[in-house]
């Protein structure tokens, strides 16, 4: 199996045969390989040749810019496998929705994953109400998640409380899935037609494990 996978590059035909749940399974399997130090040593050079004139990514991932989370490495994917938009705090805005519409409508991706992570610097910044240049407006995008997470009286709601930070990160994923459906008629129609699915996920920076929500 691994031998076949190792030399496999997505084509229009292979991509068309996949369902959203296959795509999720492929990502889960890849993360397992990463965790087990069994990542495939792909022939990237031949993948470059295979994909030079077209891409058929099976999934699109929205994730954080954090240097500890190289998406293709933690999912053990090669060239042409996943479309990947990255922004601090893994939220969707017009341009990322536009990128996802491109991935699904034009490039044929079957699954969208919105992936947050533990100890996220952007979420921490939002918890602490940090203000700095363009960051201030960006962190506002995370405030709804912050407001949504309830805590008992006296519980620390700052970045010092990692458990709280991670809860906000999970809520932020859920809210951005809702935002995606609300703000992209193109993607929403594809979801309703059963052409694509959207799932949330969390990456643990300590263990390397991806948990689908």
């Amino acid at each position, binding site marked *: 199996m691994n031998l076949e996978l190792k030399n496999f590059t997505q084509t229009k035909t292979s991509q068309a045969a996949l369902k959203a749940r296959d795509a999720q399974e492929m990502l889960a399997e890849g993360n397992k390989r990463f965790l087990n130090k069994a990542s495939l040593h792909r022939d990237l050079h031949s993948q470059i040749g295979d994909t030079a004139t077209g891409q058929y990514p099976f999934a699109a991932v929205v994730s954080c810019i954090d240097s*500890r989370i190289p998406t293709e490495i933690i999912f053990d994917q090669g060239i*042409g496998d996943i479309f990947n938009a*990255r922004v601090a705090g893994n939220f969707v805005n017009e*341009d990322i929705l536009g990128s996802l519409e491109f991935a699904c409508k034009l490039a044929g991706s079957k699954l969208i994953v919105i992936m947050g992570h533990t100890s996220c610097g952007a979420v921490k910044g939002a918890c602490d109400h940090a203000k700095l240049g363009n960051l201030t407006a960006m962190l506002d995008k995370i405030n709804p998640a912050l407001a949504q997470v309830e805590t008992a009286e006296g519980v620390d709601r700052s970045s010092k409380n990692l458990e709280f930070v991670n809860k906000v990160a999970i809520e932020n994923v859920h809210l951005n899935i809702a935002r995606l459906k609300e703000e992209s008629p193109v993607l929403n129609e594809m979801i309703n037609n059963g052409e694509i699915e959207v799932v949330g996920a969390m990456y643990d920076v300590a263990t390397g494990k991806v948990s689908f929500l």
Partner: protein
Amino acid sequence: MTINDIKQRLEDGNERFIADKLDGKLNDTARRTELTKGQQPYAIVLSCADSRVVPELAFDTGLGELFVVRVAGNVANSSSIASIEYAVAHCGSKVIVVLGHQSCGAVTAAAAGGDNGYNLNHLLSHIAPALDATDDGADINTVVKKNAQLNATELINRSSIIRSFVEKGDVKILPAYYNLDSGKVDFL
């Protein structure tokens, strides 16, 4: 690492990638554990969401080495800029690579024009300046290179934080072009 060391590190990694001889270092449990305390990536890459352009593979970097901001057309919108400000101001990253790529679908769609719906139109509007700055009917890859250069300038024009780091010589912005057919990164 000095700015020159970082550029050299990226060029060396790209050479290994092209030769299909990745080191694939810094991806193990020990590295993950070390990084739970925090990250100090030496460079930031602003690149496209295209599935064929994977910065960590193209530069052969592991966990904790690169901040990667990705959006179709590698555009410097307010969220990309804010993400990069975070990397520069909080994490000490010294090099910003704005990486366009051969046959970019977003640039091609922007050149084709027409109505692509609200979100895609919004995205493609960021590429209009590169189309304006190149001749009508210019080769797509000429527009891609111009787009990388203009977005590199946009980072300085629209962010006083990035601008001050660049003016002090603490940060350097490098527009670059990824060749889809060879994997080679050309600094422009």
